[in-house]
């Protein structure tokens, strides 16, 4: 209040008459209590939000630091990096490496691990992908959105660009071929259904990106995608049913492991890689098409 500043200056200059001021205050009648009017304008609101934001940010950063500290304390207690006497280097890893090729037929021990020793986990994982695809289909097919949102043109029409068009015409088959190669060689070298399927899907996505959604939808219709997913997952479930049933009931399995190192070997691993690859390819492609247009 300006009065107080002046009061201080006047008092310092010796110009204040205290007794007169006190008398003045006593004679004033007590004011009636004014009705409470909350004054809250835009500037106040903005200041309040910023203060709340500041508190919220501090809380978030503090909890992040606390969690990081907590987890780092555990890392300090873990076995050292790269040590060969760690608890994880035990009879489990030993059998996977030493007997893996003999028991599963796969040269790539990780492929033998995920598709033979621990095939139930991979079955669950394929179904995680399937579940996500169903959930995204359900979200994107809601009647609130029109079936195919017709935009007059894409933001960027890649088809008009001659460099992109020509390069993609040459490159898409190569990518597809590379994906199929990775898929088929999963049991012999790094690769497998998941990586191969993702590469194949990227070829299809580039096609849809450059040639446009309508042409892609005509070339790869939604019904085909669904049937492929059905057949691939159905094959996976049925073949693994046979494998689990014969395994747990100690019945002999008719599927042989073949000669390690040849492409047609490793028992069920190659067909399972192919079906997993198709599932991954169809799922990734349909994610892209749903996010793009609202329909495959």
């Amino acid at each position, binding site marked *: 209040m300006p009065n107080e500043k002046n009061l201080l200056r006047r008092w310092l200059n010796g110009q204040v008459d205290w007794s007169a001021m006190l008398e003045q205050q006593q004679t004033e009648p007590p004011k009636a209590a004014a009705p409470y009017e909350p004054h809250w304008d835009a500037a106040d609101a903005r200041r309040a939000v910023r203060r709340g934001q500041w508190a919220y940010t501090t809380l978030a950063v503090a909890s992040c630091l606390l969690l990081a500290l907590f987890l780092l304390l555990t890392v300090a207690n873990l076995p050292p990096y790269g040590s060969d006497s760690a608890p994880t280097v035990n009879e489990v890893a030993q059998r996977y490496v030493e007997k893996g090729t003999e028991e599963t037929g796969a040269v790539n021990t990780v492929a033998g691990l995920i598709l033979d020793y621990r095939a139930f986990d991979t079955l669950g994982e394929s179904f995680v992908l399937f579940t996500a695809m169903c959930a995204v289909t359900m979200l994107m097919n*809601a009647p609130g959105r029109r079936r195919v949102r017709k935009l007059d043109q894409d933001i960027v029409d890649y088809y008009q660009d001659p460099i992109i068009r020509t390069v993609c015409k040459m490159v898409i088959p190569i990518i597809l071929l590379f994906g199929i190669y990775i898929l088929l060689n999963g049991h012999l070298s790094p690769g497998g259904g998941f990586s191969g399927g993702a590469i194949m899907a990227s070829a299809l996505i580039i096609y849809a990106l450059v040639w446009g959604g309508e042409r892609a939808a005509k070339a790869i219709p939604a019904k085909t995608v669904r049937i492929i997913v059905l057949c691939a997952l159905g094959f996976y479930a049925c073949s693994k049913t046979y494998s689990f049933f014969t395994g747990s009931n100690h019945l002999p399995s008719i599927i042989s492991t073949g000669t390690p190192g040849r492409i047609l070997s490793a028992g069920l691993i190659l067909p399972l890689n192919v079906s997993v690859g198709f599932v991954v390819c169809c799922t990734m492609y349909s994610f892209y098409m749903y996010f793009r247009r609202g329909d495959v």
Partner: protein
Amino acid sequence: MSFVQNFPFFSIILCLLCAVVTFVAGDRWGRRLTVALLSVSIVLQGCVLWFCAHNNISYAYMMGHFPAPWGNEIMAGVLEPLMALVFSVVMLLSVLGGMRHIEHDIGDGSRALYWVMVDLTLVSLLALCYTNDIFTGYVFIEICTIASCGILCARESGRTLLASMRYMVFSLVGSGLFFIGVVYLYSVTGQLLFPQLLETVGAVWQNGAYRPAVTIAVGLISTGLAIKSGLFPFHTWLPEAHSQASVASSCILSGVIVKGYAFLLIKIIYRAIGPAVYYATGVQNILLVLGLGGMVICSVSAIRARHLKVMVAYSSAAQIGYIFMGIGMGTQVGMLAAILQVINHALTKSMLFLSAVQLSDASQRHMDFPHLRGAGHRDPAAGILFTAGALSMVGVPLFAGFIPKLYFAQEAFSLGWQRWPVLLALVASTVLNVLYFLYTAVLIWLPQEEGCTCRRIKAHWDEKLPAFVLLALGLAMGIHSAPLTALLRQGFALFSRY
């Protein structure tokens, strides 16, 4: 090996195949397949339960040609098929009771996918009940997360999208903590299957070198599963998610899915880490304190709720506090009481959600209390069901809710420092339950206002019958719970030996 021992595996594969077929088959076939699948699952779990209880065995089933610790395994004793049976029964009755609302709330294009999601929820719960491997548990937890989000956001009206977003955020935080706990546990033990984990964790704890790592790993796993179950400070997603879903989905989410995670935690405590090491780490005290907090504070939030379904959802959060209190007590009787509470809540909460929605249908689809006045006169069957559910939640003798509370109170006297907090919280939460549940139960039976144009509505027996079956099961549990308790004791004895 008897043929019946294949049944857990058959039920899992059958669910997966039904889900895939429903994906292309469409809505009508999807509905028939799902109802048939749930019925078949009930029969299969019942057979396994009878087999294991009769022969008093608990067996491991190899999933593949390689035994543990190299291949996957599932394990069935007495507790696992019992919980799977309870979950299947509650899911079947929820789906049948909520069928009209599914037809109404979910659009034609999405209904087939809704049935796929229900099948996948069932398979994830069955796998969580039977799993003998912690990483398989993680994979099926993720299927459960995505499928439950699917059955939540299938409904197209209301604020389901925001509720599902919040639900997914909390669920994924829980899954992330669980996964990193599993990674830590693997780093210090090198094992993933429960029998080997049990031995190795015991040996590591005795050794003493990696004790902090084991403690924090166990804490992270428990916290992750507690967040997904909706334990007290992490329950903020629960009221929105359970009230915004269609009624069958609310029953499944509230009655079955959160219990699946709690049961997985109980399995991990007994089979993977061992009660001795778990109680030595002291994590159960944190769960106890949070459970007690949840029992009281969520009941207070339920009193302040203005909509019926939100109130019922908050009461779910409070009852989940009971389950974690039982886990946190640190004794076997506490765990027994926690599982009794799981069964009680699954049966009663589904009945409450079904009857709450039927009452609101009788009041022109209004969910707030002024409009629900006298709803019991408009729909007497729903009124009876809601009153019975309210009495069960409060813990009146003869109803299912009395049994777990009795065991909790009895067990509390044998605890140490936890005795007075537990007893106080039990009394406080019962009083608060009375305040909001009996208030609502009385409200629906008040005489209707003059000039009210609501008449008695036509009762649809296909809606009422599943809820009455749930009531009958609850009364059976409340009146004659001795066989169930004996079965649970046998199950725990089998849990503790391999």
